[in-house]
């Protein structure tokens, strides 16, 4: 997932994902949605980071518990 594939592969992926989500994307909106999808793929490519001890389940977000730790 992180690496961004070429345009044709992205278009295929876009169609598959829409079908899997049960979406029938209107033809006149396809270009706009595809542009957003490509931005998303670029963004997702930056997401993976090394996991550390801080990422164990005990680190799950709870704003009240974080407050107590300050």
């Amino acid at each position: 997932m992180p690496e961004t594939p070429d345009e044709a592969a992205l278009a295929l992926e876009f169609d598959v994902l829409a079908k899997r989500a049960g979406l029938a994307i209107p033809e006149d909106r396809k270009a706009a949605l595809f542009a957003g999808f490509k931005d998303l793929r670029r963004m997702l490519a930056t997401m993976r980071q090394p996991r550390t001890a801080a990422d164990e389940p005990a680190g799950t977000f709870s704003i009240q518990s974080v407050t107590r730790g300050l």
Partner: protein
Amino acid sequence: MMAARLDVADLSLVDAADAVRKGEVSAVSLLEACLANLDSHEEAVNATIWVDKEAAFAAARAADAKRAAGGPIGPLHGLPLAHKDMYYQAGRLSSCGSVIRRDFVPDYSATVIERLSAAGAYAFAGLNMAEFAQNGTGHNRHHGDCHNPWNLPYITGGSSSGSGAAVAARFTFAALGSDTGGSIRLPAAANGVSGIKPTQTRVSRYGVMPLSFSADNVGPLARTARDCARIMSVIAGHDPRDPTSAEMPVPDYEAGLTGDLRGIRIGMPSTYFLDEVDAPVRAAIEAAASVLAGRGATIVPLTLPLMDAVATYASVVSRVEGATIHAEWMRQRPQDFATHINGRMFPGYAIPATYYVEALSRRGPILKAFAKEVFSQVDLLVTPTIRTCLPTLAATDIDNGPPGTEQVALGISTNTRPFNYLGLPSMSIPCGFDPNGLPIGLQISGRPFAEAAVLQAADAYQRDTDWHARRPEIAAV
């Protein structure tokens, strides 16, 4: 341009409430003043979706009768308010800015509406907003775009567009907005009013249209920080009907407004929040820091950690959750959303579950790291709410603009969205005007549940400046 005239709608919420309590002004006269401004300027501003004048006058007359009878009155007694049209009120329209919910009339009321009512206020209008609270500009295909009262071709910010515009235009003394990525702070900044996004879980979300389970917040927009403090004291606190709401005690926010910032350390981030900032915005923020320093605060230059990761994770979480909530409508009636709303939600279906879980699982460690590194050095952060001078509605119209328009529109929330992912309290107050006569916002953010400190700094700033008291001269259409 400033207006010379004064009317009772120019009073701050606190001053109006105090005037009613003392019998110096009637609830009916407050309502009449708000409606006079609405009748004069609504065609130009388009801040409302519905207005119920008949019920409003009945509520105002009842408030005056109760005060005359010597009955107990609350801290918002007799105040006419209007809210973003996504706060459920039993038996009243709640369109959520959409065509899909054009006729939606809930049979129950939001906890925040009930709390405001118990404090003596009443709602007389549903305010314009981005469709399902999903853009930061104020565009709305179904109900018409909301226009900035300071300069009509320009954006109001969103998604609580009508809330910001209506408070600035003196249609109401305050309004509830909601904030998932900046939707209270952006319209507060763009319209020259004050607005606070509380700590995640500080205010109940029961009876409020959801957009993102993890990032939605309820909060007020009003003329002053003190106004926001009064409303926060009314609406904050645990709600058994919203199990996600925090069980922490609610301080008397107004009592903490001393004007004294001695001993307070305020961080000015040198990275991220000031990247590519427009010169008039930078100048206004630096001048604001000087005012805060004049009240005794120490200004500390700061480099913030993790900001790019925060921005990415925030986007992943809100897109997936928004797509989930709207899935059935996206499948069955996609044409009933504006194209840019379709475009915002579709990526939510394209994000693998593992990425969503990763974005959520990083939230705790990132908040801990951020809090440890930043709040060991400072008590508050000040940044621009919006990095740029405000763009026009035309320049940010994703559905009709040229390629690249989306990036301009999305860039509006670059400085606000991180605080939703982190869950921190964050407020915008006016701190100047750009060359087009449009307001500039100062964003003040603090530790979890440090709304009192945020409000205190905002109030201290407003004691030495008058940006918040200025009134737009609204052009006729």
